[in-house]
């Protein structure tokens, strides 16, 4: 059994925390960015959800989602070629990336529904 350790190989143990770390980073930027933006440049309340704030954070969320889905796909396809601990790590990492992507969708969904600073 050979275990690829070169970063960012799909079976690298840090893959176990990569997707969730990306989710955490995205979450911090989402909440922190919104708070700072609302403090510095609050949009007109009458504009509802159609604001630069929602759009910027929405695009960021889509980019994060895309990255997470790509990571999940690369881990999943690598797991089919591996065995032992490498297969295990790739498989679990794929699941974690997928869950993190789901987390981006669920937490980011209110961007489509609520104005940013009210």
């Amino acid at each position, binding site marked *: 059994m050979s275990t690829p350790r070169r970063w960012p190989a799909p079976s690298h143990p840090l893959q176990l925390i990569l997707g969730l770390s990306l989710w*955490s980073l995205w979450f911090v930027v989402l909440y922190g960015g919104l708070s700072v933006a609302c403090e510095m440049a609050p949009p007109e309340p009458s504009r509802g959800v159609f604001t630069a704030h929602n759009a910027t954070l929405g695009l960021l969320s889509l980019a994060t989602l895309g990255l997470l889905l790509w990571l999940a796909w690369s881990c999943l396809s690598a797991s089919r070629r591996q065995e*032992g601990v490498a297969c295990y790590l790739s498989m679990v990492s794929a699941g974690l990336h997928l869950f993190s992507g789901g987390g981006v969708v669920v937490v980011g969904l209110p961007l489509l*529904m609520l104005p940013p600073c009210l």
Partner: protein
Amino acid sequence: MLHRELELAWGSPAGLRGMLTVVNHGTLGLRFMVTGLVFFLLGGVLAMLVRTQLAFPDQDFMSPDVYSQVTTMHGTVMMFLFAIPVLEGLAIYLIPKMIGTRDLACPRLTAFGYWCYLFGGIILFSSLLLDMAPDSGWFMYTPLSSGEYSPGSGSDFWLLGITFVEISALSAGVELTVSILRTRASGMALHRMPLFAWYILAMALMIVVGFPPLILGSVLLELERAVGMPFFAVAGGGDPVLWQHLFWLFGHPEVYIIFLPAAGIVSTLIPVFAGRPMVGYGWIVASILITGFISFGLWVHHMFTVGIPQLAQAFFSAASMLVAVPTAIQVFVWLTTLWLGRPRMTLPMLWVLGFLVIFVCGGLTGVMLALVPFNWQVHDTHFVVAHMHYVLVGGMFFPLMAGLYYWLPLVTGRMPSESLGRLGFWLTFSGFNLTFLIMHWTGLLGMPRRIASYESAMGWDIYNLISSVGGFMMSAGIAVVLLDLALHGRFGRLAPRNPWCADTLEWAVATPPTSYTFASLPQVTSRHPLWEFPQLGESIRLGEHERAGAPHGRRELLGTDPLTGRVREIIHLPGNSVWPLAAALVLAVVCISLLVRLYPLALVAFVVAACMLLRWSWENGAHASATPLGDNEPSDPALHSRTPDGPGRWTMGVALLADGAFFLSLLFGWCYLWTVSPQWRMPDVSPLSLPMMIASGLALTLAASWLGRRCRAIVAGREEGLARAFAGIAALGGVHLLLLLTLAVQAALAPTDSAHDAVLWVGLAYLLVHATLATVLMLLQARRAALGLVSARLPFEPGVVLLFWRYHTGAYWILVAAIGVLPRVLGANA
């Protein structure tokens, strides 16, 4: 012969000396648990006082002031002095046995953590006896806990005592992480690790990252109370909501820090009593990791009523519901395992089933509370108190009891009483639900928490009376359990080896376990070693595996690869030591001096404690009292201090994670106050000299880079001029320190006048402490190199120190950017 050798190497001297210097995980794990049990009983008495007060309307059994002290101390004792330490104790006791090693990787740290816990707990609890206990609630919200509204010493007892106890939690977090990653049995790859170890690994890392925000908050609040730095006072440019952020950044992960090890107990017991492997091992591992991360993204759901934009509330509401998913995955995996197995309804399983019922109910009310409108309605009512107890008692206490009954035969060699145990369970289970199920309704009827009495006209009488009766019934149940524990040592039948037919390695050791745990170290080839080889315990006892005996007199473990479990080195551990006790004692003096505001004494004691800790670190590696160089040293694998890697390096790395979490919390505080605080005043011209900051940083960067080059040279076998080079690096560190000190003096900050200057002061103090420590460590390395304790044959220690230097360099430049450059770029009115 084999066992006598091992006992000579691992045993503790008899009498008081042995008691005070012991570093063995078995003894210290039990001490943690017994001390936690004592605090649990004290906290339980406080709970009964509360229920007595609330049993009837218009009671004056306690004055409102005393009632506030009792409720605050009940929450504080249960969370900080019982739940976390007991679970840490359980982990400290079990993890080495489960992962097939002889002790934790940092045994003196275990002892230090225990003494800090004991002294911190005593200091904190003594406040109640002195009638000056904290009374601002267990979360100590400002401004209620600030000097203006809590002028006595109560808040100081809380802030200093809890910070002291948190040193213990961090110690356990660091060493459990390193032990699980680096000292597992040969062949125990990550995918063969017992699930309990996965849970403890997550808990330990969450402690490392989750506790520092509260430590920072406590430091800031104590500075505000002691010298008037206005971090949380609006008039001075601070903001009381910052405390809530810092507290709940710790406080919400704390719930999962408590839940995860308890769930680890459940995940260990269910396969054993179902008689089959866990269905979906990978699902459980993924759930643990998801819980560990997502739980850090929920803290604002405790603050929905403070005035946060709806969109931000929606983020946290969604994240709060998201965390239910991994928990639900675990529940379904447990149920499926039971469904597909042949469950045995033993006493431990009774407590597991009690856990499932109560915790699922608590989880569901948690999802209700994640909904913002509902949260607003029941905020600060008894509904929240009931939910919290369903989650914490159901999620932690019931599994703990299950684990206690399960592992009791391992600890004492005797079985508990089935009849007393069942009576204890049913009394506790019924009493608990009577108390807290009813309390949900009391809360929905609008009864606020933390009120000392209520009028009969409110209509809460009967519900409170039922809750109080239930509370006393639960106490009776716990008393029966305690009676069972007390009697079983005398009357319990002798336990056979592996009485539950378990699969994990802790049942392969002697009952009760010996000081050296394993006479020889087994190789692991599956997730269920004892199901695969039921006679493994006997072959271990006969010394048929690795590292049997201890003819050299050293305490040895195998250091293994964190991923594959392949053996990398032999880790030699230090023996019994008085340093952990001495250092903790002096830190207790620091704590008490700060309480009574004898600051010069506190400073002296702090310096003495630092010297003791450095002296402790001196007795390492090839030191005469550790493992001096010899002719017949093992080479394949080598002793860890003869390699560039080893547990100390990992310990430093994990400790720096905690340091980094503290640092990031400080940065968060700076950005938060700058952005949100209504009366924040950014001066037109920064008081910090940018050229001075850059000059100091260049000296530091040059030194760190020089150290990096020397470390690579040592590993490559080049050791000429080592002591001189290290002295030169220390001198550059001294230049950096001197420039930093000059910068701080030149800035002429007024930290008691504005939060801006106060944060700068704390930031500079943080850098100064690190710069001093980095320089001192380098000087010690220079001395050790001169004495031949660091060389090409002994390349280990500089690598550990290098990690610290690199961390400090990174933190320095980030802080310079945040407090020195950013205000200049964005301007005073940003």
